[in-house]
């Protein structure tokens, strides 16, 4: 079942268009990878769906509901939850407090926290530590846990492995895939470790200069002979 449907999306910052005419779908329980060279507009596309960057044209619907007129907070409440690449935790709060504020306005905060700890058991070990004092991998895990506190339908994840050691890259992507499968989440992920992401995603889109230049089954895309050239932006 299609969860996110994006059609002819134009997006950017101010009046400057970075993403041009993008179509994409994400189904419930599906992990879709967005790959492409630096500056292709991957993160901007994610931010536009989340309400952080400006949508200049086209449509974006979640479960049939129009996301475009909604501010970022309302899109999160509607189920489209964004996990930014950087500064994705409240450094001065404890991990437990980070989780609690991420379920603002909900009455079942404790239940949600228990559910998230059940999904990401490692969090339980540092629940009462100050988030700013955690390692890079732990911080990314807390950022993910915070996003999950909103009980999202769709998770928009921007480079979750940035700054992580190669060992942790695979772990993080495996966790995301498991979440898509077990928690029935739709996940749209932008990932710099393209091959690692394609090994785990169901489908992928290659974005170059704001346009989708290739789309299909992730594993097949990774094996295409011109994949490297596409990833590095050499479309010829």
């Amino acid at each position, binding site marked *: 079942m299609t969860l996110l449907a994006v059609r002819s999306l134009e997006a950017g910052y101010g009046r400057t268009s970075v993403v041009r005419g993008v179509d994409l779908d994400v189904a419930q329980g599906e992990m879709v990878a967005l790959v492409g060279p630096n500056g292709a507009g991957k993160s901007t596309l994610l931010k536009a769906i*989340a309400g*952080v960057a400006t949508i200049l044209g086209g449509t974006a619907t979640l479960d049939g509901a129009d996301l475009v007129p909604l*501010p*970022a*907070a309302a899109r*999160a*409440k509607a189920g489209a939850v*964004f996990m*930014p690449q950087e*500064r*994705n*935790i*409240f*450094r*001065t*709060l404890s991990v437990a*407090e*980070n989780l*609690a*504020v*991420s379920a*603002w*306005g909900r009455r079942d905060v404790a239940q949600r926290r228990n559910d998230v700890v059940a999904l990401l058991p490692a969090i339980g070990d540092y629940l009462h530590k100050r988030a700013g004092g955690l390692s890079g991998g732990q911080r990314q895990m807390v950022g993910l846990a*915070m996003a999950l506190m*909103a009980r999202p339908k769709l998770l928009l994840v921007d480079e979750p492995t940035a700054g992580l050691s190669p060992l942790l890259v695979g772990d993080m992507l495996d966790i995301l895939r498991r979440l898509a499968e077990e928690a029935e989440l739709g996940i749209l992920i932008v990932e710099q470790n393209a091959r690692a992401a394609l090994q785990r995603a169901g489908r992928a889109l290659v974005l170059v200069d704001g346009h989708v230049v290739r789309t299909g089954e992730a594993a097949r895309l990774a094996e295409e002979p011109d994949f490297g050239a596409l990833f590095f932006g050499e479309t010829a």
Partner: protein
Amino acid sequence: MQMLVDALASAAIIAPAAIGFTLIYTLFRYANFAAGGFVTVGAFAAWTLNAFFGLPIWLAGFGAMAAGALAFGLCDRLVFRPLRGRSGGTLLLVSIALSFVIENIIRFCFGAQIRGFDLPLTGPIEIAGVRVTRETLAVVAASAAATLSVGLLLTATPVGRALRAVADNESLAQIRGLPVPRIEAVGVLIAGALFGLSGTLIGLDLTIDPNLNWAVTIPIIAAAIVGGLGSPLGAAIGAFGIGLAEEATATFLTPTYKGAVGFAAIALVLILRPQGLLGDKVDRK
């Protein structure tokens, strides 16, 4: 010992306002030099309710907190909110200008006369050789209660956690679905109420002077900087440090230099420990 008690009284007066100052700094990243102006508003609001309308001082104190919250809330809505996103320097200059406007409005409404609360005259009581007035005890108790309440609010309530989250990372707070403008408004009202409380406490321990503004602004800012900008507990500790330094100056040098203590403390802290006692470490540029 007597000096410590006097320092505690001085600290108790400025501690609530210093906490309000640091709360506004962490939320909006500007130093509000109009803090003393809002303290003066609180002092005159409490005087009006107590001496003019005959309300008991504790009730006048709550009224002053409401007046401080209202005055600061209104100024934030009309002056500071339209300038959100501008540099801290711009907002600092605007706050200085606002403080002069407030000072002159108070002079226009109440004249230049120094006033005092309508309280029964009581003599000091002696505890272990230290003389202390009932007013001083009330000032310290009210200030401690306010400091503890704000500390509890910030650490043990959802609103407090949300305030700290917005102060830490406003854009992430928006992404996580927090109603940022409403939370900021709560922070402004709390800070305004704390300014109003400091105004009442000044009236209880000293006198109510329309020229109060700058006499309290510098110690308030010094307390917040000494304690570490962004730390309400630090602001309270900083207030005690400033109070102690002021009383020591008055005792061992001359009371004339008491007003310079705040400036000296700011300079020393910025040179020796820019993050203050409890603030997060800052990078020198």
